[in-house]
């Protein structure tokens, strides 16, 4: 494939996160073993895999929330992380407006808060109580909250769980646009095969170990991947086949084979090193 012969442009970016020979053992059970993972600046890496395959554990290990039983994993020194958790269950007894939530782990100005909320289309919610938000609104506010930290690395755990199918594609598009605008690295976990692939530079399929990794196109041809996901993988391959070209924001298809290079033109069109 033309795509895979080009080294991804992102490999030149600063290393933000690394797992090296990572193994995690929880309650006497081996959850992960021999996992290698890197995320660089400007790169979107998606971890997929079956339920119970250790996707979320991998995320927790690189964030320092669970200790490795072997190998190592972690975020590089000086890297600011913006984390979008899978669920955000805040008890109603704790009063909290969206604005106050935006200041939870950062000290942004009101203008910076408005900017970040605007980026995820939630500026009108700034004075709302977080207890009144819908699942989709909460997800977007949480994304804005991570953004207001001006992160080098955005980490998202199953970002579309509370979002309906139409919102799903829009959210992944938003994540890609954010990467283009801010030049940050993105690591996300998803069980969803269809939509996520379109907005991903590199896929890591995890089922206890790394069963395959590469561009979405490469992974879709992998036998173990097809065995793991069965018919779903077929549907995905089909989907990806039809979308073997990228679109710019106006919807114009970019020529096939230029995909890796042109990925960074996505969005406002300026270059990132």
């Amino acid at each position, binding site marked *: 494939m033309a795509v895979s012969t080009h080294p991804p442009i992102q490999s030149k970016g600063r290393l933000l996160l690394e797992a090296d020979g990572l193994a995690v053992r929880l309650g006497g059970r081996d959850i992960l073993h021999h996992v290698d993972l890197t995320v660089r600046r400007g790169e979107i890496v998606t971890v997929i895999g079956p339920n119970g395959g250790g996707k979320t554990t991998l995320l927790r290990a690189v964030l320092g929330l669970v200790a490795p039983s072997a190998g190592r994993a972690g975020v590089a020194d000086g890297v600011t992380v913006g984390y979008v958790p899978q669920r955000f269950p805040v008890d109603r007894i704790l*009063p909290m407006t969206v604005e106050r939530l935006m200041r939870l782990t950062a000290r942004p100005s009101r203008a910076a808060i408005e900017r970040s909320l605007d980026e995820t289309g939630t500026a009108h919610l700034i004075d709302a109580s977080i207890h009144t938000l819908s699942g989709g609104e909460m997800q977007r506010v949480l994304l804005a909250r991570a953004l207001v930290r001006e992160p080098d690395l955005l980490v998202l755990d199953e970002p579309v769980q509370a979002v309906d199918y139409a919102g799903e594609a829009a959210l992944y598009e938003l994540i890609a646009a954010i990467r283009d605008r801010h030049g940050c690295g993105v690591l996300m976990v998803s069980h969803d095969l269809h939509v996520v692939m379109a907005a991903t530079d590199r896929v890591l399929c995890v089922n206890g170990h790394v069963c395959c990794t590469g561009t979405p196109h490469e992974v879709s041809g992998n036998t173990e991947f097809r065995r793991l996901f069965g018919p779903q993988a077929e549907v995905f391959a089909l989907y990806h086949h039809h979308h073997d070209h990228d679109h710019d924001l106006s919807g114009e298809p970019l020529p096939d084979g230029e995909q890796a290079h042109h990925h960074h033109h996505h969005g406002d069109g300026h270059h990132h090193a």
Partner: protein
Amino acid sequence: MATGTTMLDDFLVRALVAGVGVALVAGPLGCFVVWRRMAYVGDTMAHASLLGIALGLILGLDLGIGVLAVTVTVALLLAALQGQRLVGSDTLLGILAHGALSIGLVAVAFMETVRLDLMAYLFGDILAVSARDLLWIWGGSAMVLAGLAAVWRPLLAATVDPDLARAERASPPWVQVVFALLIAGTIAIAMKIVGVLLITALLIIPAAAARRSARSPEGMAAAAAGVGVVAVLGGLALSIGVDTPSGPSIVVAALVLFVGSLAIPARG
């Protein structure tokens, strides 16, 4: 008559100053107890503080020091045992609370020479607050409030979502230990006011009553301090007016304020 009036003024003023000092710190700290669903933790430390009284009497120490030593020990023990999986956390708290309370009661019973007014420690006696107690209460309250202000942001972040706070390096683990120590300190200073059995009430009822009028965590903390002060005033008035025990009267006043707060429409 003149001397009588002065005396009355004096012990009432002392009681008032002491109660306000405790309410100002119990309200904001109690918000975290409520937010983190830790009411039982406060209870555990409070029950255990009776052991501190016994130790203080046996060793001839200041009782406040004895209580502080035991509550701090229980706080650190709880922090250390947080990760264990042998028994559930509610069982662990129950074992610590009632174990320490019983050892305290047994130890007190052994001390034949000491005449101990147990009721005063169980329910407090705000009307017997001395000038020295006032120093202890206000000094302690100022320290606890300063400590709480210092860890407020990281503690709140860890309260809202512990994983998020750790992932974003926004809350080092020692913040939790500091919080446990602040509760221990508050119990030691509030014991004289409402007694060990009712301290948790002073932590959680004003905080719960403040919820409806608040839109932010900071607003709720300030409102909880206010509710606590009003409860102290109301409780003291009740106690003086109809000669009821002061500690329980303050808690009854707080309870009335809580029930009244339910009439306020929720603000989010």
